[in-house]
């Protein structure tokens, strides 16, 4: 455990001594909850259409696949015409593209970022490394199945998939969202214990709160 995360006594500017426990005091102590559809079917359908037309991707490249996302921003592929754009912070994005191999060290950051994203949120696994480990199937430090740790909506196979494959994958995701089947955030809330147990089984120095929001 890092020193700044330990429970300790601090002195305030006006001289008081107070006890702080960063993991308890600075983070929410409530687990995620399942959010059922709130409105009638026809309105939910409209919402889902709107959600599918504004996929905002968290600009977090976890592996080599991140290089395939850059051309999508350029005029040649121009993902923006499909309502897809990249955002600098998890608070503004609703799509997490896990781009390629994921080391356990990066997985830790990915979990923190994913949990900070607001629902409804979607995860796309890009490249064969996220599906079954790919060429890193015997590595001591990269995970094999992304869906053990995060709920995944769409996998895009390939090593690496071309930008066209990504666009096709995003179109597929849109269909899933419009059909109301992109329930990743709810799945995560429902099976929260299972996901946490899996995450903790590979991240040995778990020095972060269980709820990162």
């Amino acid at each position, binding site marked *: 455990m890092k020193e700044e995360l330990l429970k300790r006594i601090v002195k305030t500017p006006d001289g008081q001594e107070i006890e702080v426990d960063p993991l308890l005091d600075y983070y929410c102590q409530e687990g995620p909850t399942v959010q059922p559809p709130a409105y009638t079917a026809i309105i939910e359908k409209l919402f889902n259409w709107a959600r599918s037309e504004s996929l905002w991707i968290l600009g977090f490249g976890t592996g080599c696949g991140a290089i395939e996302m850059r051309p999508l921003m350029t005029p040649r592929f121009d993902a923006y015409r499909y309502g897809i754009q990249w955002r600098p912070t998890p608070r503004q994005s609703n799509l997490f593209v896990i781009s390629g191999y994921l080391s*356990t*060290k990066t997985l*830790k950051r990915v979990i923190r970022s994913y949990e900070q994203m607001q629902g409804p949120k979607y995860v796309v696994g890009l490249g064969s490394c996220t*599906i*079954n*480990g790919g060429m890193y*199937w*015997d*590595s*001591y*430090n*990269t*995970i*094999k*199945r992304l869906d*053990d740790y995060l709920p995944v909506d769409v996998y895009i196979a390939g090593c690496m998939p071309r930008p066209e494959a990504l666009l096709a994958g995003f179109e597929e995701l849109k269909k899933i969202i419009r059909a109301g089947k992109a329930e990743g955030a709810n799945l995560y809330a429902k099976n929260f214990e299972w996901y946490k147990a899996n995450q903790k*089984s*590979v*991240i*040995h*120095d*778990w020095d972060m709160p269980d709820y990162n929001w």
Partner: protein
Amino acid sequence: MVMQALYDTLKQRFPLGELTVQRDNLAFITVEAVRLYPLLRYLRDHEGFSHLVLLTAVDWLEDGQFQLTYLLNNRAKCQDVGLRVMIPRDKPEMESIHDLWPAAATYQRELREMFGIDFPGSPRLEEEFILEGWHGIPPYRRDFDTLAYARETFRDRPGRETRDPAQHMKQQLYGDKGDV
């Protein structure tokens, strides 16, 4: 020839081991662990090898030794010289050279984490470098079984097949006729 001349010059001052000349401007010299530090300092201050290119290790499991390789570069003459040091595997400890090249401290941190080689006195040696929360034997040691570790730590997705690429393509292109 140039490297042989350098070796002869060094030989007058230091007891040296074997010389391996790879190219006209690249050679490796084996030295004892205790001779390394003064030799590095001499090469840096008097022979113009001012740049530490890399510091790396090889695990000779069968011989019970680690080999440390210090690669130095002479910019002006465009020469590289590598110094090889063998240290015992059961007591992996080496003198730190962070005061000759500060950058060496980073290599030494990496070697400590990946091979478990200790460099007493090197700055920030105790801190984690790449791996977080690693316990067990260091992963770059050859007696660490990567495959077994991956199997017990990460779950497989069923259905993965491995094929010999040549055989697979033959089958795809020619079907059962195979040898045609």
